[in-house]
């Protein structure tokens, strides 16, 4: 259960923080160029942080931190079809179908 005070702190903190991320350049920096090293790192934020978040959820997906083979296969199917088709819906469909079939079979 998520504590209400914590939740509201997160909502407000994340709201203010997200706005500042979005406003910094448009609002304060104007059209001055950004250092290339900064842009180079920002390019890889999504492809680094999202997989890092998902990896433990996939590998320790079973009871008491064991590995659940259905969920691993569903993750592999989502990633594989997503990289192959570049289509978000095809990836979700492949992952969900794999998960349902495996849960049903096992």
């Amino acid at each position, binding site marked *: 259960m998520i504590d209400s005070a914590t939740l509201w702190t997160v909502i407000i903190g994340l709201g203010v923080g997200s706005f500042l991320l979005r406003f910094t350049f448009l609002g304060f920096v104007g059209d001055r160029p950004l250092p290339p090293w900064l842009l180079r790192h920002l390019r890889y934020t999504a492809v680094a942080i999202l997989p890092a978040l*998902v990896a433990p959820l996939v590998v320790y997906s079973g009871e008491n931190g064991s590995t659940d083979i259905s969920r691993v296969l569903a993750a592999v199917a*989502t990633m594989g079809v997503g990289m192959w088709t570049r289509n978000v819906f095809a990836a979700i469909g492949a992952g969900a179908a794999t998960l349902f079939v495996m849960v049903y079979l096992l």
Partner: protein
Amino acid sequence: MPITTTKSAFWAGVRDGAPFILVAGPFALLFGVLATEAGLNVFEVMTFSLVVIAGAAQFTALQVLENDAPTVVVILSALAVNLRVAMYSAALTPYLGKAPLWQRVFAAYLLVDQSYALSHAKFEAAPELSVPQRMAYYFGTCLLVMIFWFGMSYLGAALGTQLPQDLPLDFALPIAFLSMVAPMVRTLPHLIAAVVAVVVGLLAVSVPYSLGLIIAGSAGMMAGAQAELMLKGRGA
């Protein structure tokens, strides 16, 4: 049809943005459902979606909250996921930087993957557009996406408690994230960033305060940036 007025620019944006409700809608619905499952009420879900407007960051916050991480780590982790909007902001600034401040405030609030991607492509392709026309186009791309974002968040929150208990919803979030990431892995440095982040993420899973995510994400970013530099150095 060429854009001749501010009004026609707005409607061109609305038209171009329409297909993206198919992407924003389902993620908003899923957020509503998962947040309700995690114990949030409808008011909390809607405020969350209204204040933050960032699917991936909202999912991350929800996940890290459920791990009982300290509040500051929850916020930092979700902001790290959202760092890319700073890059979008930087990329749009040459085109919108001269607009009035109040417009830039609203534009910043509405800056999401879709509004950035559509507008940046449009501004590059049509350099003759005036600043007010660009702003109108930009707000046009946001209109339907935002209506669906809030509407579907609400629907998800309303449905959340009525879904059958045996659905494997615990895994909806990993599948949603992987489906967002997979199409972004376009180059070798992207792949290296993702692989390094996964390996470090698994090794750092027991680091206290859920800081493993931030460590792994930073490692992946540095690996990607470094790989890009090395490939460029070799003239690839």
